[in-house]
């Protein structure tokens, strides 16, 4: 795989992770305004974006396991960073959603 191909995959991962991150933040806004169902939908959408990012990564993994040389370009390390931090952020968001719901329930 040449550098340009690696760059393209990296950018796809960055883009989808970025979309996902934006959605998670929208989810946080919805939680604050107690719109829990909408927040949950947002986090689901965020998950679809993460899946898309993951699929791009999987193509690289498949090439690697098939014996093709895949260079770990610094841009790919950076893309991974985007992907993993967003995945973690979404997990935290799910926990927060349940916390927000509990707090609302107990204050009623």
């Amino acid at each position: 795989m040449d550098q340009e191909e690696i760059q393209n995959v990296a950018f796809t991962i960055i883009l989808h992770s970025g979309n996902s991150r934006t959605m998670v933040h929208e989810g946080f806004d919805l939680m604050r305004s107690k719109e829990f169902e909408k927040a949950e939908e947002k986090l689901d959408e965020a998950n679809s974006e993460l899946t898309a990012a993951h699929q791009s990564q999987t193509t690289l993994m498949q090439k690697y396991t098939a014996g093709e040389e895949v260079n770990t370009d610094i841009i790919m390390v950076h893309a991974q960073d985007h992907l993993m931090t967003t995945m973690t952020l979404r997990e935290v968001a799910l926990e927060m959603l349940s916390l927000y719901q509990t707090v609302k329930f107990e204050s009623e």
Partner: protein
Amino acid sequence: MRNVLIICQGGMSSSVLAKKTTEHLNEDGNDIQVEATSTNEGREMIEKGKYDLYLVSPQTKMYYDQLKKTGERAGKPVANIPPQAYVPVPMGIEKLSNLILQELPES
């Protein structure tokens, strides 16, 4: 020469685009320099007003409204980069170059 700044999370992926886009614009005879930076620095940069145009990358879209307001205070244009213009292939670079030419105020 006119200056454009791309703002993204860490300023890294954008620096790849900034370099390629500058080359493309210069080849077409435009005296424009594109650079890249992180979100935190980006806000400061808008306040300082050193650049003629600020572009917000798709993965930092959530900061766009905030950056746009900072831009309004500083009297500088801030625009979003659509996902199709954020790919380091010739077509993406072309789209980003066109966006820059369209959004850059007349000098």
